[in-house]
C-alpha cells in the first residue's frame, strides 16, 4: 500500500516546526506498512491532482505569504481544488490555512488572492510587521498567542496558536470545531474549517503529532482515496496521548488562573455556549481523560515508557 503526499513550499512555509506534520504522517503510515511518497512542491511546480492523496501546507509570516500567494493562485490553485474534489485529503496550517481561503489581507490593507478552496477570508486588524511598532511587546499585543483547545466531534484537538489575522467563514463553510480555550478563527468561538477531507486550522505544535486522531483521519482519507477503503490498525499512542493531555491540563490551568475571565466574557459576548458551560466542558473533558488513564494524568506520572516498536 502506498500513498502520495504533496508537501507545499517546504523551504518557505515552514514556521513552527510545521514539517513535523509530514514527519508524523510518514511515521504513522510506516508503522502500518503503508509506504509514503512525499513530493516537495516548490514555487513553479504544478499539482498533479490525480496523483496526490494528501496535500500539506505549513504556516509562514506575511513575507512568506506574499512570496507564495501568486504561485498558489495561478500555478497550483486549480490542481488543489480538483484534488480535494476527487477525495484527496489536505491539511493547511496557519498562514497556509489563510491562503487556502478566498483572500488574505496583508499589512496596510493589501489583499492576497487565495486558493479559494475554503469559503473563508482573513482580515488583519493591524499590521504585524509594519513600521509603526516600536517595540516587541507592541507587536505581540496584536496577536492571538497561546494554547488552543478545540472540540472536534467527540474528540478534543490541542495545539498552540500564534496569528495576527482573523479568519471568517462564509455560509458554505463548516468550522472544524468549537473553541474551548484560546482564540481560534476570530474569537467567535469557532476554529478552523473542514471541507470534505480538507482541513484548515490555526493549530500548531505541530498539530498532527499531538492529535493522532486528526493525523489518522487524514491518513484514512488519503488511503481511501487511493484504495476505496481504509482499515487502519490502532497504534500505541501513549506518548502522544500524554502530550495531548498535558496540553489540555495547561489550558485548564490557564483558565483557572484568571485569564479565564476574559475568555468567559468572550464566549458570552459571542452568544455561544454559556461561558460557565464552556469552562466546565473543558474541565470535564480533562477529568474524563485523566480518569481513563490508570494512575491519573500520565504526563506527570514518572517513568512512562515506550518500548521499541510502536505497535501495541
Amino acid at each position, binding site marked *: 500500500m502506498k500513498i502520495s503526499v504533496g508537501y507545499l513550499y517546504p523551504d518557505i512555509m515552514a514556521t513552527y516546526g510545521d514539517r513535523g506534520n509530514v514527519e508524523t504522517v510518514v511515521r504513522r503510515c510506516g508503522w502500518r506498512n503503508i509506504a509514503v511518497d512525499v513530493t516537495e512542491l516548490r514555487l513553479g511546480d504544478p499539482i498533479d491532482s490525480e496523483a496526490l492523496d494528501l496535500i500539506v501546507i505549513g504556516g509562514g509570516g506575511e513575507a512568506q505569504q506574499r512570496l507564495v500567494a501568486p504561485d498558489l493562485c495561478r500555478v497550483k490553485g486549480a490542481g488543489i481544488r480538483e484534488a480535494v474534489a476527487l477525495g484527496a485529503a489536505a491539511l493547511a496550517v496557519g498562514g497556509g490555512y489563510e491562503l487556502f481561503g478566498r483572500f488574505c489581507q496583508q499589512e496596510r490593507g493589501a489583499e492576497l488572492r487565495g486558493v479559494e478552496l475554503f469559503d473563508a477570508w482573513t482580515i488583519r486588524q493591524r499590521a504585524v510587521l509594519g513600521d509603526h511598532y516600536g517595540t*516587541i511587546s507592541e*507587536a505581540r499585543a496584536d496577536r492571538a498567542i497561546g494554547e488552543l483547545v478545540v472540540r472536534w466531534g467527540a474528540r478534543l484537538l490541542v495545539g498552540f496558536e500564534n496569528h495576527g489575522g482573523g479568519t471568517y467563514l462564509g455560509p458554505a463553510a463548516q468550522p472544524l470545531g468549537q473553541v474551548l480555550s484560546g482564540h481560534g478563527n476570530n474569537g467567535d468561538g469557532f476554529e478552523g474549517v473542514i471541507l470534505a477531507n480538507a482541513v484548515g486550522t490555526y493549530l500548531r505544535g505541530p498539530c498532527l503529532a499531538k492529535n493522532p486522531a486528526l493525523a489518522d483521519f487524514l491518513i484514512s482519507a488519503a488511503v481511501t482515496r487511493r484504495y476505496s477503503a481504509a482499515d487502519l490498525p490502532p497504534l500505541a499512542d501513549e506518548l502522544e496521548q500524554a502530550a495531548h493531555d498535558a496540553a489540555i491540563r495547561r489550558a485548564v490551568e490557564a483558565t483557572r488562573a484568571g485569564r479565564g475571565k476574559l475568555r468567559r466574557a468572550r464566549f458570552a459576548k459571542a452568544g455561544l455556549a454559556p461561558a460557565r458551560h464552556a469552562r466546565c466542558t473543558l474541565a470535564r473533558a480533562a477529568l474524563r481523560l485523566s480518569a481513563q488513564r490508570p494512575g491519573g494524568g500520565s504526563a506527570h506520572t514518572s517513568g512512562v515508557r515506550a518500548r521499541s516498536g510502536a505497535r501495541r
Partner: protein
Amino acid sequence: MTLSSAGVAGVSLAASARRALAVSAGKAARSGARRLRRGNGTAIPGQVALTIDPGALAGLVGEITRGSVLVTGSNGKGTTCRMLAHVMRDAGLHPVVNHEGSNQRSGLATTMVAHSTPTGHLPADGQAIGLFEVDEGSLPEILRHIGRPKALVFTNIFRDQLDRYLEPAYITALLERAMRRLPADTALVLNADDPRVAYLAPDLSNPRIYFGMEDTDAGRGAADPTSDFPRCPRCDGELSYTCVYYAHLGHWACMSCGLARPRPQVSVTKVDLAGPSSTSLQVVTQTADIVLEIPLPGLYNAYNALSAVAAADRCQLPDRSLSAIEQITAAAFRMEKVRVAGHDVYLALAKNANGYTEVLRAVLGDRQPKRMLLGLNDFPGKQPDTSWIWDVDFGSLAGLVPAPVVSGNRAADLAVRLKYAGWVEAGPWTDLAVEPDPVRAFQIALARTPPGQPMWVVSTSDVLLQVRRWLRQQGYVRALWREQRGPARWQA
C-alpha cells in the same frame, strides 16, 4: 560669576548629585538583593538607578575612556564577549563587562553601577574599555543610552523564541532602524556567512568588517534540515549555497539578483572539530595567521572565536593577544563539566532549534553512543511555544543515545518528538524514560549510565537550573549567582 553661569553650575551640580544618589541607591539595592538571597541582583540595581537618574547609563558609559564594544545576535554573544574579554585583558586593557548583569537595559545599568564609585563616577582609568553583550531585541533601547559605540558585533540572526520576537524579518527591521542612529565611525563587525547579518543596513557608510568560514571541508554540503531558508535580503529571491556550515550559515548567493556573501577580511581557513570537548582552528586576519586550540566543542564555538578575533582586530588589539582566546572556560551550562559520583557530567544549554541541534552535533559528532538527559520546558505566559523542537535535527542522530531520559514541564512533547525522529525504535537500548521532574530525571539518567562513563544534560534553561541547584545542594558545584534568578530571566 554671572547669574546665568551660576544657574548652569547649579544645574550641573544638581545633575551630579542626582547621579551620585542614583548610583548609591543602586548599590544599596544590589547589596540588599544579595542579602535577601535574591541572587546578585542583576536587574534591580540598574532599574533603581535609572528610575532616579534616567541618564545614569549613558553618563557612566560615556566615562569609559576607550569607548565601548557591543555584541549582539541570536546565538553565541555571551561566549564571544567572554573570549574578547580575555584578549582585552591580555592586551593590558581593563574591560567593563556585563557578565554579571543581564543583557538588557537594566542589566547594563547594574554593571555600570557596580563599577562606579559612590560619587556617581567611574574611577579614572585610561585602560578601561566597555564590552557589553546586548539582547538583540533590546538593541534599539540600548543604543539610545550608548549612542557612540566603537564597534557593533553581530554574531547571527536565527529564528528564536518565536512568540516573543515574531520573525527574523521583524528583528532585522528593528535592528536596521536602530542602526540608523549610529555615528558614521562606529564599525559594524558582521558575519558574512549569515545573509541576514551581512546585508544589514547596506546603505550606511559605516566601516564594515566581515568575518566568515573559509574551510569548506567543515561544511555540510547540502542544505541543513534545521535551516529556516532565508530569502535574499535584497530582492527576496532564492538563495543558493555552495557550502552550508550549519542552519543558514554558509557560502550563499542569490540566484535572482546576484547578491553574494561578501569576502571576509577575517576568516577561519581550517577548523578541526576534535571531539566532544575541544576545537582547533586557524584564523587569518589582514595581519595575523594563528592557530587557536579552544577547549569548547562544536562549529558554533569556532564561530564565536572567529567573531571575537574580528572584533579584536577592529579594536586594533595586538595580534599576540589573540591566543588569549584559548583561556576561555566553559561558562555555566555551556558544556560545563561537573564530576558526580564517578561520572563526568556535562551541562549544556540549548534554547532554540539551532542551539539544540549544534549542541547535539558537537557531542555526537564522533558517532559514538553517549548517555544523555534531554530537557524541554516552556515559560508560561512568556514562551509557551515549544514547536521548534520539530526543527531540531534529531533524525540524523537516532540510535546514538541509548536509553534517553527526557524531562521538564514539556517532557511529553519532547518524548513525542524523539519517537517520531526514530529515537525510540532505533538501536538495541531504546527504553525511553519520561520524568518531568528534573532532579528525579537526573538521578534516573545517572543510574542508567554505566560506571565511569560520562553523561550529558542537554536542555532549555529550567531543567538545567533545577539540576544545578540540586548539584550545589549536594556539594558537587559552587553556587552560581545566575541560579537564583527566575528562569524566565535567563539570559542567552
